């Protein structure tokens, strides 16, 4: 009963495309290091930084591109970044240690996120900039600096709850940041304790794709910076956080067709597209669709550096200049913290096909040597098809057996819930035992965000790979250093 295949072909660009076209290499890697296996391409992250820098140059802006480390824990990626001019946003004690140990000097590191006293102490001791979440945290930091006789710490004040004039722009409720209405007390503290903390700027991070919300926040930050200047402080930078997005799919029409068919399936106007009729947030109430699609917008016309460009070209809601002009004219630097967008096309997750079995409805179950915690596509709402890397090109039966199929990808845990995909994945041919399925572009959050040791299944090793003189090199992630493997050098 599988009708026209609803492919969601992943966007795969060079050099990832070349890697996926190297089945012998990928199979030997999985044979040697086990399934699942993550492969990261460290040179790509450097190219992505350069693409963000190009947007800075176009708008004549200064400031830092901070990699949000939480997007991926690979050492290779962090060390390769250390060999660029990028910064790093560390959101935990261990991430901070990792970045310093990978070659990041303290002035290129920003400590963000929820912080315990140890994290705060190391940040202050090392001399990294601290993005302060609340009044209490700033008080703690000042106390730490005094108690341990530490040097003055540079701080950014993370703000939230920006208010618009004329039109009320609603934003999702956030756990983070200080409401902008209460910024006065923060500035009071910074003013009073200038010997302990140096206000280097303000920050916001909004979890939204909405340009208007971000424009409102950025303008709000400019106003706060001016207030700080009026008080005789000398803030220099506005940190606008992340959320630039990635484009996971190659073809917008496939995405539109898929979501339309999903809506029809929820309304009962076509057979289900998901395991047990899961609606991805949509539900049918008397023939009308309610709820919202809890899926990452996997195809979008503007993502990554282009989204930053669009944001900077947007006019500020009341000061009526483009946001880029507003920053430049006020002599403020721009900090960004892309996670997902910086690791775009940087990584792939590999899994061995362990078992293939038919189901009553004509679809198949494909059991993989990985589980839903190893590649958290569903957790992050990212829908993109895997690429089949065949074990043997000269498969018996030739082209005859190569008809499109719908499959459910299930994991290696003895749990009903362990579905690598809750949707039926359409593939151009049925994979067979021994093939490898490659999930492209998983380096942003999907690759190892939730991997854990349940049921003692093997956790994915990570290797770094790249091209040199026409052939692929690879190294264990922890053994990668730019001095040995950086391409195009010495």
């Amino acid at each position, binding site marked *: 009963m599988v009708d026209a295949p609803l492919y969601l072909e992943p966007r795969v660009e060079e050099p990832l495309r070349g890697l996926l076209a190297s089945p012998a290499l990928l199979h030997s890697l999985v044979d040697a290091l086990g399934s699942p296996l993550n492969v990261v391409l460290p040179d790509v992250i450097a190219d992505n930084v350069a693409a963000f820098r190009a947007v800075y140059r176009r708008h004549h802006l200064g400031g830092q591109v901070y990699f949000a480390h939480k997007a991926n824990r690979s050492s290779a990626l962090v060390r390769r970044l250390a060999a660029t001019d990028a910064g790093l946003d560390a959101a935990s004690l261990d991430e901070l240690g990792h970045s310093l140990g990978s070659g990041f000097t303290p002035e290129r590191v920003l400590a963000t996120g929820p912080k315990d006293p140890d994290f705060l102490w190391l940040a202050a001791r090392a001399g990294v900039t601290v993005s302060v979440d609340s009044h209490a945290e700033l008080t703690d930091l000042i106390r730490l600096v005094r108690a341990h006789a530490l040097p003055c710490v540079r701080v950014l004040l993370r703000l939230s709850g920006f208010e618009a004039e004329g039109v009320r722009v609603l934003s999702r409720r956030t756990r983070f940041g200080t409401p902008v209405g209460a910024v006065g007390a923060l500035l009071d503290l910074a003013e009073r304790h200038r010997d302990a903390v140096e206000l280097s700027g303000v920050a916001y991070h909004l979890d939204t*794709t909405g340009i208007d919300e971000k424009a409102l926040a950025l303008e709000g930050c400019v106003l706060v910076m001016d207030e700080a200047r009026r008080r005789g402080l000398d803030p220099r930078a506005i940190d606008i956080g992340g959320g630039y997005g990635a484009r996971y799919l190659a073809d917008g029409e496939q995405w539109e067709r898929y979501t339309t068919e999903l809506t029809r399936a929820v309304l009962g106007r076509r057979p289900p597209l998901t395991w047990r009729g899961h609606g991805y947030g949509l539900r049918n109430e008397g023939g009308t669709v309610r709820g919202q699609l809890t899926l990452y917008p996997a195809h979008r016309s503007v993502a990554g550096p282009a989204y930053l460009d669009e944001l900077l070209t947007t006019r500020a809601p009341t000061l009526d200049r483009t946001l880029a002009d507003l920053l430049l004219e006020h002599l403020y630097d721009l900090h960004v913290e892309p996670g997902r967008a910086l690791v775009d096309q940087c990584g792939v997750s590999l899994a061995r096909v362990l078992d293939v079995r038919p189901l009553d409805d004509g679809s198949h179950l494909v059991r993989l040597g990985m589980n839903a915690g190893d590649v958290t596509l569903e957790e992050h709402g990212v829908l993109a098809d895997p690429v089949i890397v065949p074990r043997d090109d000269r498969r018996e039966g030739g082209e005859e057996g190569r008809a499109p199929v719908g499959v459910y990808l299930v994991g290696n845990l003895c749990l009903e819930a362990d579905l690598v995909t809750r949707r039926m994945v359409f593939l151009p041919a049925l994979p067979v035992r021994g093939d490898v399925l490659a999930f492209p572009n998983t380096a942003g*959050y999907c690759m190892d965000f939730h991997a854990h040791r349940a049921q003692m299944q093997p956790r994915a090793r990570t290797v770094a790979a790249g091209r040199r003189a026409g052939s692929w090199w690879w190294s264990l992630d922890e053994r990668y250093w730019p001095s040995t493997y950086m391409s195009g050098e010495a």
Partner: protein
Amino acid sequence: MRYDDITEAIGNTPLVRIDPAVHGLRGIDLYAKLEMLNPFGSVKDRAAWGMLRPRLDAATAAGEQVVELSSGNTAKALAVLAGMHGLTFKSVTNRMRVPEIRELLVLLGAEIEELPGRSECLDPTDTDDPLTQFHRSLSEDGTSYLHTDQYYNPRNIEAHATGTGPEIVKDLGGRSPDWFIACVGTAGSSTGVARVLREHDPGVGVVGLVAGKSDFIPGIRTIDEVNEVGLFDPDTYDTIEAVSADEAIDGMVVLNRRCGLLAGPTSGAAYHGAVRHLREHDAEPGEHGEHRTAVFIACDRVESYLGYVRQRRPELLGRAPHRNALSSVTEAELAAVRSVDVAGAREWIARERPLVIDLRGPHAFAALHIEGSLNIVDELFEQQVHGGLPFGRGQSVLLVCPVGEKSARFAALLTRMGHPDVRSLDGGVVAWRDAGAPLTRD
């Protein structure tokens, strides 16, 4: 026509024939139902009044606020109607992408709430869609709302079943047209009119038009979004077809320029979708060989959509290039500009007191600037020089911008216009600050 109340002017809109020389259909007469001529400017006037009227007295007594999920025309009509009756109005939307309409609503006294955009990192604790949150907020304690609920309210359909539909039949001499073509937004007008037309002639062909999925046409839903509308029933339509934003604008321009109908892009979509659909049936003969008829709805006016057109098809608003346009500066002229570095500029200012013009925005200028400088924002300055030099030739001028790029272009232009001594600050205010030169705030 003499009325006591503007609401009496709602409805009874003209049905105007489109010149066959324009649409090119030979066997079909095409008519536009000019809903844009309703007093508040759109087809939504009928539904808004239909939904509000029966509940006005109770709402006034209770001091309720009228609320609606609307990005445009329904909000406009409700804002006026509510205001006329001493009530306030709030529009909640995540679709208000037409800035002119947003400002008009504020002018009419409406309160506007924009719903949050989509989440970038999926948050499993965020289970409700914004609309569910909106409905919940309506029932919270201590709030008092009149929710007109246009996507579910049967009075929306009723307004067209008792007004728009019968008017079309009357103007066609008591007959239904052979085709009725309508864009689907709330589905109110298409459902109400189709019901009446089918009562007269079950054979009428009803065409619903939706927007292409990645397109935005104001007032029209996409093929997926119509499923979120309570009034939408796929059986109302014989066919549902998609129109692109480009086609909508093409259709709009034809209505504007060739038919004398100052209708907006949604009307353009209806016209374009109508002609495209009817062209396929144009060769089929009518029952007795006579001309057949088709009606589409021209639902609102063009004026609010200039920004929409500017964004998508700027060439349609093309004006002759300005004299002294900044964009006409050549590389050679730019290379010949006299720029002056920070040290040189400080010395020059102290010696000759040139006029220092800072081209940045007023807020940035107020925060920090070179002492004694004058702020003329670049956009304003550009308009000024279209007409000629804004200062005498004897007055030396130093132009300042953030990094010295914009000021160099202006310096090149003013030099071409005949100014003998206009210079650009090399590296701009950024270089000035980095050199440690003084900046003041007043």
